[in-house]
């Protein structure tokens, strides 16, 4: 039932809302991928990471280097995507290693600095040798092609024309389902339980024989790997990347998705990613709404869009402080007696020392 719905979704949306919304749908899936990756670091292991988008950028740039006219390389996607994910994973460890001793907001600021450093390098490495083409970004990136069929062009199957966005939808859907399965299995694995222990109480976790250093590094590496994968897919889908796609705001947006949806809980994270991708798009219709109700466009909808997005963010958080779909454990802790709740919250999902 769900499978049929997911398979038919681009057709339903394409017919109901127009093909531009199928593109939005593709981005929803990309953000779900990113949010699930960040959820491993923040939601599972309780390490606040504000530079997550750097891994997305690394995956995207590696894809662009290995599959675009920039260096004249055109490797197939099944080679490039894992390489991008692996590169991001390595950088995850590189970032994680020196920051092992840091906790809480110190960690947040270091990851933030790391994200900015990566972005500044991407922005400026067009000289002395042209590695990233600077602020102009890199274009003409190869689309994914499977078995000789390029996903960058429309495809005709049994008399139905499938535009590129539809094809990518299925690719992204496959990747998302894969990542969901991995994330779910991880959560209940030995490592996943070690992460939960680490998140709740690091000292107790160490006392129980958990190698906190390795477990933390693993969380960084796993989260980064997912980010790198999503980055590669993004580069292939978009065909063009520039440092502008990888600003701190993107990191913050992904963090908002998981906190808003319900940290640590996969359905919550997915819901958060869907909402925060769709709301800004839906708010593009404010212009039409103004014409319909007031007879004219009073305020430029582009100006109002982000404002309303901010209002929605605040309102949703005030309305559901534990997230829209909190995990069962969290819900219980949240509705517990005041004293108990406070005690538990002192160590719950917070990242303070």
């Amino acid at each position, binding site marked *: 039932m769900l499978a049929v719905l997911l398979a038919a979704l681009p057709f339903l949306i394409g017919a109901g809302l127009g093909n531009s919304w199928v593109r939005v749908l593709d981005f929803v899936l990309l953000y779900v991928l990113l949010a699930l990756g960040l959820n491993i670091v923040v939601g599972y292991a309780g390490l606040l990471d504000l530079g997550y988008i750097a891994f997305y950028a690394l995956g995207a740039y590696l894809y662009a280097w290995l599959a675009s006219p920039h260096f004249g390389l055109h490797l197939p996607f099944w080679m490039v995507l894992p390489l991008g994910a692996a590169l991001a994973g390595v950088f995850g460890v590189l970032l994680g290693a020196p920051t092992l001793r840091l906790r809480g907001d*110190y960690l947040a600021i*270091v990851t*933030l600095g790391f994200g900015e*450093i990566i972005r500044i390098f991407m922005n400026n490495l067009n000289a002395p040798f042209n590695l990233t083409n600077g602020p102009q970004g890199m274009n003409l990136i190869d689309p994914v092609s499977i078995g000789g069929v390029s996903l960058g062009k429309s495809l005709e199957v049994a008399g139905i024309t499938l535009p590129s966005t539809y094809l990518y939808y299925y690719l992204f859907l496959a990747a998302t389902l894969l990542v969901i399965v991995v994330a779910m299995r991880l959560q209940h694995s030995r490592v996943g339980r070690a992460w939960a222990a680490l998140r709740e109480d690091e000292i107790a976790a160490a006392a129980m024989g958990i190698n906190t250093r390795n477990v933390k590094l693993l969380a960084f590496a796993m989260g980064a790997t997912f980010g790198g994968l999503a980055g590669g897919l993004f580069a292939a889908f978009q065909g063009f990347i520039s440092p502008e796609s990888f600003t701190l705001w993107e990191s913050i947006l992904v963090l908002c998705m998981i906190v808003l949806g319900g940290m640590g809980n996969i359905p919550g994270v997915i819901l958060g990613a869907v909402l925060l991708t769709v709301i800004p798009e839906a708010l593009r219709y404010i212009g039409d709404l103004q014409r319909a109700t007031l007879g004219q466009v009073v305020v430029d909808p582009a100006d109002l869009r982000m404002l309303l997005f*901010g209002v929605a963010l605040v309102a949703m958080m005030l309305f559901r402080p534990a997230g829209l779909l909190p995990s069962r454990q969290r819900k219980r802790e*949240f509705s517990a007696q005041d004293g108990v709740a406070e005690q538990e919250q002192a160590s719950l999902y917070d990242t303070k020392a």
Partner: protein
Amino acid sequence: MDIFTQQLINGLVLGSIYALVALGYTMVYGILELINFAHGEVTMIGAMVALSVIGVLLGASPDLPGLMVVIAGLLVAIPACMALAFGIEKIAYRPLRKAPRLAPLITAIGVSIILQNVAMLVWGRQYVSFPAILPRGQHEILGAHITDLQIAIVVLSLLSMAGLWLLVEKTRLGRAMRATAQSKEVAELMGVNVDRVISYTFIIGAAIAAIAGVMVSAYYGLAHYYMGFMLGLKAFSAAVLGGIGNIAGAMLGGLLLGVIEALGAGYIGDLTGGFLGSHYQDVFAFLVLILVLVFRPSGLLGERVASRA
């Protein structure tokens, strides 16, 4: 002209602005353990309000003395920012005081988006320029130039910091703030009105931020609805560098970050043999920040807290 002294002066000027903004972050963090993401935007609003007042005054009579006009702008901006911060705390943070720690972080981000876009609607997307009405004297020390404005910024910053220090160390309110930072519960038992103290903390931070906002727009000669973001980011980094929650740390961190940035921008080309240009100055700043934190995980002046209570 001596480049080193010149960059040192530029760094100190910029650093004292960072320090002022950092104070707001660190005070709120010390009490609530909240990264008040909207603080940078409060600074921006301060600059914008002051510029509007300056514009109105100059429009009314263009021959008013420049210094008076700027001070008038500042005197309007400060209460405006105080009221704004009071409202933000009341609406977006207070209801979430008992929520998980990341929840108020998200509302802070939301408020920051709201303020940016309100500012964009009110003041437009363009840069708002700061009229050249301030005295523009220039002095020479040790082979470097320093302008009247730069001196004024440093002096005013130091005065604000001294004022804040007196407030925190010597007054009843300051004692209540320190008590609240140590333990809200115990402070409450001792008769401290914790809610009011938290409100005051936000208000005081915002007043200082308004001063910083006016100074930064006067220094660069312009203001922009987006300017609070990077400024806030740098100031927060400065607060962390000094040891977040620690007021002296924020001052030290701010000055240090400003100097590092300026020297980095001045010398990075020579250091790397022309490989990296001055647009890497932010990389330099963040790199130093990361290195400091790697070797001193709780910042320069931060106390070493037991890793978990």
